[in-house]
Protein backbone atom coordinates (compact mmCIF):
# COMPACT_ATOMS: atom_id res chain seq x y z
CA UNK A 1 0.00 0.00 0.00
CA UNK A 2 1.06 3.57 -0.53
CA UNK A 3 2.08 5.70 2.42
CA UNK A 4 0.14 8.94 2.36
CA UNK A 5 -0.61 8.36 -1.30
CA UNK A 6 2.87 9.29 -2.41
CA UNK A 7 5.65 6.99 -1.31
CA UNK A 8 5.69 3.28 -2.15
CA UNK A 9 7.33 1.18 0.58
CA UNK A 10 8.60 -1.38 -1.92
CA UNK A 11 10.47 1.37 -3.81
CA UNK A 12 12.44 2.65 -0.85
CA UNK A 13 15.13 0.03 -1.00
CA UNK A 14 16.65 -1.69 2.00
CA UNK A 15 16.56 0.54 5.07
CA UNK A 16 17.78 -2.04 7.57
CA UNK A 17 20.64 -4.49 7.80
CA UNK A 18 20.31 -7.91 6.20
CA UNK A 19 19.95 -9.77 9.50
CA UNK A 20 17.08 -7.60 10.72
CA UNK A 21 15.44 -7.74 7.31
CA UNK A 22 15.62 -11.53 7.36
CA UNK A 23 14.08 -11.68 10.84
CA UNK A 24 11.28 -9.37 9.74
CA UNK A 25 10.59 -11.47 6.65
CA UNK A 26 10.56 -14.69 8.66
CA UNK A 27 8.05 -13.16 11.08
CA UNK A 28 5.93 -11.99 8.16
CA UNK A 29 6.01 -15.44 6.58
CA UNK A 30 5.00 -17.12 9.85
CA UNK A 31 2.15 -14.67 10.46
CA UNK A 32 0.99 -15.00 6.87
CA UNK A 33 0.71 -18.78 7.14
CA UNK A 34 -0.93 -18.78 10.59
CA UNK A 35 -3.45 -16.08 9.61
CA UNK A 36 -4.45 -17.97 6.49
CA UNK A 37 -4.92 -21.16 8.48
CA UNK A 38 -7.01 -19.25 11.04
CA UNK A 39 -4.54 -20.10 13.78
CA UNK A 40 -3.32 -17.74 16.46
CA UNK A 41 -0.25 -19.85 17.14
CA UNK A 42 1.37 -22.98 15.80
CA UNK A 43 -0.37 -26.16 16.97
CA UNK A 44 1.21 -28.19 19.74
CA UNK A 45 1.14 -31.88 18.97
CA UNK A 46 -0.16 -33.92 21.88
CA UNK A 47 -1.04 -37.13 20.10
CA UNK A 48 1.60 -38.06 17.55
CA UNK A 49 0.43 -40.17 14.61
CA UNK A 50 2.32 -43.30 13.61
CA UNK A 51 4.10 -42.96 10.25
CA UNK A 52 2.35 -46.06 8.91
CA UNK A 53 -1.07 -44.61 9.77
CA UNK A 54 -0.05 -41.33 8.18
CA UNK A 55 1.07 -43.08 5.00
CA UNK A 56 -2.17 -45.03 4.73
CA UNK A 57 -4.30 -41.97 5.35
CA UNK A 58 -2.45 -39.80 2.85
CA UNK A 59 -3.20 -42.28 0.10
CA UNK A 60 -6.84 -41.29 0.53
CA UNK A 61 -6.32 -37.57 0.16
CA UNK A 62 -7.26 -36.04 -3.16
CA UNK A 63 -6.22 -32.85 -4.85
CA UNK A 64 -8.74 -30.20 -5.89
CA UNK A 65 -11.15 -31.36 -8.60
CA UNK A 66 -9.60 -31.20 -12.06
CA UNK A 67 -10.44 -28.10 -14.05
CA UNK A 68 -11.40 -25.98 -11.08
CA UNK A 69 -9.63 -22.80 -10.13
CA UNK A 70 -9.30 -21.14 -6.79
CA UNK A 71 -11.54 -18.12 -6.85
CA UNK A 72 -11.23 -15.15 -4.57
CA UNK A 73 -14.87 -15.24 -3.54
CA UNK A 74 -14.87 -18.92 -2.71
CA UNK A 75 -14.20 -20.13 0.81
CA UNK A 76 -10.88 -21.83 1.39
CA UNK A 77 -11.09 -25.60 1.11
CA UNK A 78 -9.49 -28.15 3.38
CA UNK A 79 -9.25 -31.87 3.47
CA UNK A 80 -9.01 -33.22 6.98
CA UNK A 81 -8.10 -36.66 8.18
CA UNK A 82 -9.15 -37.33 11.74
CA UNK A 83 -7.96 -40.52 13.41
CA UNK A 84 -10.36 -42.35 15.68
CA UNK A 85 -10.18 -42.49 19.40
CA UNK A 86 -11.80 -45.62 20.72
CA UNK A 87 -13.92 -45.80 23.82
CA UNK A 88 -16.57 -47.99 25.40
CA UNK A 89 -15.72 -50.89 23.12
CA UNK A 90 -16.74 -54.46 23.84
CA UNK A 91 -17.44 -57.55 21.80
CA UNK A 92 -20.89 -56.25 20.86
CA UNK A 93 -20.00 -52.73 19.85
CA UNK A 94 -17.15 -50.44 19.04
CA UNK A 95 -17.41 -46.73 19.56
CA UNK A 96 -15.18 -44.36 17.60
CA UNK A 97 -14.78 -40.66 18.38
CA UNK A 98 -13.45 -37.93 16.12
CA UNK A 99 -12.59 -34.34 16.94
CA UNK A 100 -12.62 -31.49 14.46
CA UNK A 101 -11.43 -28.03 15.39
CA UNK A 102 -13.43 -25.12 14.10
CA UNK A 103 -11.06 -23.60 11.57
CA UNK A 104 -12.39 -20.09 11.78
CA UNK A 105 -13.94 -17.73 14.27
CA UNK A 106 -16.59 -16.56 11.81
CA UNK A 107 -18.43 -17.97 8.86
CA UNK A 108 -18.57 -21.53 10.13
CA UNK A 109 -17.20 -24.77 8.78
CA UNK A 110 -19.12 -26.52 6.03
CA UNK A 111 -18.47 -30.24 5.60
CA UNK A 112 -18.96 -31.02 1.95
CA UNK A 113 -18.20 -34.72 2.12
CA UNK A 114 -17.08 -37.12 4.81
CA UNK A 115 -16.27 -40.80 4.74
CA UNK A 116 -15.18 -43.35 7.29
CA UNK A 117 -12.29 -45.67 6.45
CA UNK A 118 -11.83 -48.78 8.54
CA UNK A 119 -9.93 -52.04 8.18
CA UNK A 120 -11.74 -55.37 8.46
CA UNK A 121 -9.99 -58.72 8.91
CA UNK A 122 -12.28 -61.54 7.79
CA UNK A 123 -11.67 -65.27 7.49
CA UNK A 124 -11.71 -66.48 3.87
CA UNK A 125 -15.11 -67.02 2.25
CA UNK A 126 -16.91 -65.16 4.98
CA UNK A 127 -19.58 -62.54 4.72
CA UNK A 128 -20.15 -60.29 7.65
CA UNK A 129 -22.97 -57.92 8.41
CA UNK A 130 -22.47 -54.87 10.52
CA UNK A 131 -24.84 -52.24 11.75
CA UNK A 132 -23.33 -48.79 11.93
CA UNK A 133 -24.96 -46.16 14.10
CA UNK A 134 -24.12 -42.49 13.97
CA UNK A 135 -24.44 -40.86 17.36
CA UNK A 136 -24.31 -37.16 17.95
CA UNK A 137 -23.85 -34.97 20.96
CA UNK A 138 -26.93 -32.97 21.82
CA UNK A 139 -26.16 -29.73 23.65
CA UNK A 140 -29.19 -30.23 25.92
CA UNK A 141 -28.56 -33.90 26.63
CA UNK A 142 -25.38 -35.36 28.18
CA UNK A 143 -26.06 -38.70 26.47
CA UNK A 144 -25.38 -39.33 22.81
CA UNK A 145 -28.44 -39.50 20.60
CA UNK A 146 -28.88 -41.73 17.59
CA UNK A 147 -28.93 -39.79 14.33
CA UNK A 148 -28.94 -42.53 11.75
CA UNK A 149 -27.93 -46.13 11.16
CA UNK A 150 -26.92 -48.24 8.19
CA UNK A 151 -26.53 -51.95 7.56
CA UNK A 152 -23.25 -52.89 5.89
CA UNK A 153 -22.27 -56.17 4.29
CA UNK A 154 -18.61 -57.05 3.89
CA UNK A 155 -16.95 -60.06 2.31
CA UNK A 156 -13.28 -59.18 1.95
CA UNK A 157 -10.39 -58.34 4.19
CA UNK A 158 -9.07 -54.84 3.66
CA UNK A 159 -9.99 -51.20 3.89
CA UNK A 160 -13.64 -50.32 3.60
CA UNK A 161 -14.98 -46.89 2.86
CA UNK A 162 -18.33 -45.64 4.00
CA UNK A 163 -19.76 -42.31 2.94
CA UNK A 164 -21.26 -40.51 5.92
CA UNK A 165 -24.60 -38.79 5.58
CA UNK A 166 -25.79 -35.32 6.54
CA UNK A 167 -26.23 -36.17 10.23
CA UNK A 168 -22.60 -37.21 10.53
CA UNK A 169 -21.47 -34.21 8.49
CA UNK A 170 -23.39 -31.91 10.82
CA UNK A 171 -21.73 -33.57 13.81
CA UNK A 172 -18.30 -33.00 12.22
CA UNK A 173 -19.20 -29.33 11.70
CA UNK A 174 -20.00 -29.07 15.39
CA UNK A 175 -16.58 -30.45 16.22
CA UNK A 176 -17.36 -33.91 17.49
CA UNK A 177 -18.48 -37.07 15.73
CA UNK A 178 -19.17 -40.40 17.39
CA UNK A 179 -19.79 -43.59 15.43
CA UNK A 180 -20.85 -46.90 16.86
CA UNK A 181 -20.13 -50.10 14.96
CA UNK A 182 -22.30 -53.03 16.00
CA UNK A 183 -21.42 -56.40 14.45
CA UNK A 184 -24.29 -58.75 13.78
CA UNK A 185 -24.29 -62.51 13.39
CA UNK A 186 -21.34 -64.86 13.91
CA UNK A 187 -18.13 -62.91 13.70
CA UNK A 188 -14.70 -63.28 15.18
CA UNK A 189 -13.73 -60.78 17.84
CA UNK A 190 -11.22 -58.15 16.80
CA UNK A 191 -12.37 -58.27 13.19
CA UNK A 192 -12.38 -54.49 13.13
CA UNK A 193 -8.76 -53.46 13.45
CA UNK A 194 -8.63 -50.48 15.75
CA UNK A 195 -5.14 -49.97 16.98
CA UNK A 196 -2.64 -51.35 14.49
CA UNK A 197 -0.17 -48.66 13.48
CA UNK A 198 -1.17 -48.86 9.82
CA UNK A 199 -4.83 -49.76 10.29
CA UNK A 200 -6.21 -47.10 12.58
CA UNK A 201 -9.71 -46.03 11.45
CA UNK A 202 -10.11 -42.48 10.28
CA UNK A 203 -12.62 -40.04 8.86
CA UNK A 204 -11.64 -38.15 5.74
CA UNK A 205 -13.60 -34.93 5.29
CA UNK A 206 -13.68 -32.21 2.66
CA UNK A 207 -14.34 -28.90 4.35
CA UNK A 208 -14.99 -25.39 3.22
CA UNK A 209 -14.53 -22.47 5.55
CA UNK A 210 -16.72 -19.40 5.34
CA UNK A 211 -18.53 -20.62 2.24
CA UNK A 212 -21.92 -21.48 3.64
CA UNK A 213 -23.04 -18.10 4.88
CA UNK A 214 -21.24 -15.98 2.37
CA UNK A 215 -23.16 -13.18 0.68
CA UNK A 216 -21.97 -12.17 -2.73
CA UNK A 217 -22.05 -8.43 -3.43
CA UNK A 218 -23.02 -7.47 -6.95
Amino acid at each position, binding site marked *: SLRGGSQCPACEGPTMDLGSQRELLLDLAKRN*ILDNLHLTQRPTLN*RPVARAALRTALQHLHGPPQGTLLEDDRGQEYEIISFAETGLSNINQTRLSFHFSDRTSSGGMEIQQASLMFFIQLPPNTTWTMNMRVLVLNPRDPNLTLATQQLLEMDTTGWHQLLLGPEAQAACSQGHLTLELVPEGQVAPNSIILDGAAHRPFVSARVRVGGKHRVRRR
Partner: protein
Amino acid sequence: GIDCQGGSRMCCRQEFFVDFREIGWQDWIIQPEGYAMNFCTGQCPLHVAGMPGIAASFHTAVLSLLKANTATGTAGGGSCCVPTARRPLSLLYYDRDSNIVKTDIPDMVVEACGCS
Protein backbone atom coordinates in the same frame (compact mmCIF):
# COMPACT_ATOMS: atom_id res chain seq x y z
CA GLY B 1 8.53 -9.99 -14.40
CA ILE B 2 12.22 -9.68 -13.60
CA ASP B 3 14.13 -11.46 -10.87
CA CYS B 4 16.45 -9.29 -8.79
CA GLN B 5 20.10 -9.64 -9.73
CA GLY B 6 23.20 -7.81 -8.62
CA GLY B 7 22.75 -4.12 -8.05
CA SER B 8 19.56 -3.65 -10.03
CA ARG B 9 17.34 -1.00 -8.43
CA MET B 10 14.36 -1.43 -10.72
CA CYS B 11 11.24 -3.26 -9.66
CA CYS B 12 12.01 -6.95 -9.45
CA ARG B 13 11.15 -10.17 -7.64
CA GLN B 14 13.43 -11.05 -4.75
CA GLU B 15 13.45 -14.75 -3.95
CA PHE B 16 12.97 -15.58 -0.29
CA PHE B 17 12.64 -19.14 0.98
CA VAL B 18 11.56 -19.97 4.50
CA ASP B 19 12.90 -23.36 5.56
CA PHE B 20 10.42 -24.84 8.06
CA ARG B 21 13.30 -26.67 9.76
CA GLU B 22 15.02 -23.35 10.40
CA ILE B 23 11.99 -21.90 12.20
CA GLY B 24 11.21 -25.15 14.05
CA TRP B 25 7.96 -25.87 12.21
CA GLN B 26 8.97 -29.16 10.61
CA ASP B 27 7.18 -31.11 13.36
CA TRP B 28 3.68 -29.86 12.50
CA ILE B 29 3.99 -29.09 8.77
CA ILE B 30 4.36 -32.40 6.97
CA GLN B 31 4.78 -30.98 3.48
CA PRO B 32 6.33 -28.96 1.91
CA GLU B 33 9.72 -28.48 3.54
CA GLY B 34 9.57 -24.72 3.20
CA TYR B 35 7.71 -21.71 1.89
CA ALA B 36 8.98 -19.83 -1.17
CA MET B 37 7.41 -16.55 -0.12
CA ASN B 38 9.39 -14.15 -2.36
CA PHE B 39 8.62 -10.44 -2.43
CA CYS B 40 8.73 -7.40 -4.69
CA THR B 41 11.24 -4.64 -4.33
CA GLY B 42 12.73 -1.84 -6.38
CA GLN B 43 11.87 1.44 -7.94
CA CYS B 44 9.03 2.20 -10.29
CA PRO B 45 9.83 5.28 -12.38
CA LEU B 46 6.80 6.99 -13.84
CA HIS B 47 7.42 5.73 -17.35
CA VAL B 48 6.98 2.12 -16.27
CA ALA B 49 3.93 2.75 -14.11
CA GLY B 50 1.12 0.48 -15.14
CA MET B 51 3.52 -1.88 -16.88
CA PRO B 52 3.51 -5.37 -15.51
CA GLY B 53 7.28 -5.66 -15.79
CA ILE B 54 9.63 -3.62 -17.88
CA ALA B 55 8.89 -2.52 -21.44
CA ALA B 56 9.80 -5.44 -23.65
CA SER B 57 8.34 -4.72 -27.07
CA PHE B 58 7.86 -1.92 -29.53
CA HIS B 59 4.29 -1.33 -28.42
CA THR B 60 5.07 -1.24 -24.74
CA ALA B 61 8.05 1.05 -25.39
CA VAL B 62 5.81 3.51 -27.23
CA LEU B 63 3.25 3.33 -24.47
CA SER B 64 5.97 3.96 -21.91
CA LEU B 65 7.14 7.05 -23.74
CA LEU B 66 3.61 8.37 -23.95
CA LYS B 67 3.14 7.78 -20.26
CA ALA B 68 6.41 9.51 -19.41
CA ASN B 69 5.43 12.53 -21.48
CA THR B 70 1.91 12.84 -20.16
CA ALA B 71 3.09 12.26 -16.60
CA THR B 72 5.61 15.11 -16.71
CA GLY B 73 4.73 17.62 -14.07
CA THR B 74 2.53 15.36 -12.01
CA ALA B 75 3.97 15.12 -8.54
CA GLY B 76 4.34 12.05 -6.39
CA GLY B 77 3.64 9.40 -8.96
CA GLY B 78 2.20 6.72 -6.73
CA SER B 79 3.43 3.75 -8.75
CA CYS B 80 4.44 0.79 -6.67
CA CYS B 81 6.38 -2.42 -7.22
CA VAL B 82 3.76 -5.07 -6.51
CA PRO B 83 3.10 -8.75 -7.19
CA THR B 84 1.51 -9.26 -10.59
CA ALA B 85 1.32 -13.06 -10.43
CA ARG B 86 0.88 -15.25 -7.41
CA ARG B 87 0.14 -18.89 -6.84
CA PRO B 88 -1.26 -20.91 -3.97
CA LEU B 89 0.76 -22.72 -1.34
CA SER B 90 -0.28 -26.32 -0.73
CA LEU B 91 0.15 -27.33 2.88
CA LEU B 92 -0.18 -30.65 4.65
CA TYR B 93 -0.05 -30.24 8.39
CA TYR B 94 -1.21 -31.46 11.80
CA ASP B 95 -3.82 -29.32 13.51
CA ARG B 96 -4.21 -29.01 17.28
CA ASP B 97 -6.30 -32.21 17.41
CA SER B 98 -3.49 -34.09 15.61
CA ASN B 99 -5.73 -34.40 12.56
CA ILE B 100 -4.02 -34.21 9.20
CA VAL B 101 -5.12 -31.27 7.12
CA LYS B 102 -4.46 -30.55 3.48
CA THR B 103 -5.27 -27.15 2.05
CA ASP B 104 -4.28 -24.74 -0.68
CA ILE B 105 -3.82 -21.18 0.57
CA PRO B 106 -4.38 -18.86 -2.39
CA ASP B 107 -2.00 -16.08 -3.41
CA MET B 108 0.85 -17.07 -1.11
CA VAL B 109 3.81 -17.36 -3.47
CA VAL B 110 4.89 -14.30 -5.46
CA GLU B 111 5.74 -15.40 -8.99
CA ALA B 112 6.23 -12.06 -10.74
CA CYS B 113 6.40 -8.36 -9.89
CA GLY B 114 5.57 -5.23 -11.81
CA CYS B 115 4.77 -1.58 -11.38
CA SER B 116 1.21 -0.74 -10.43
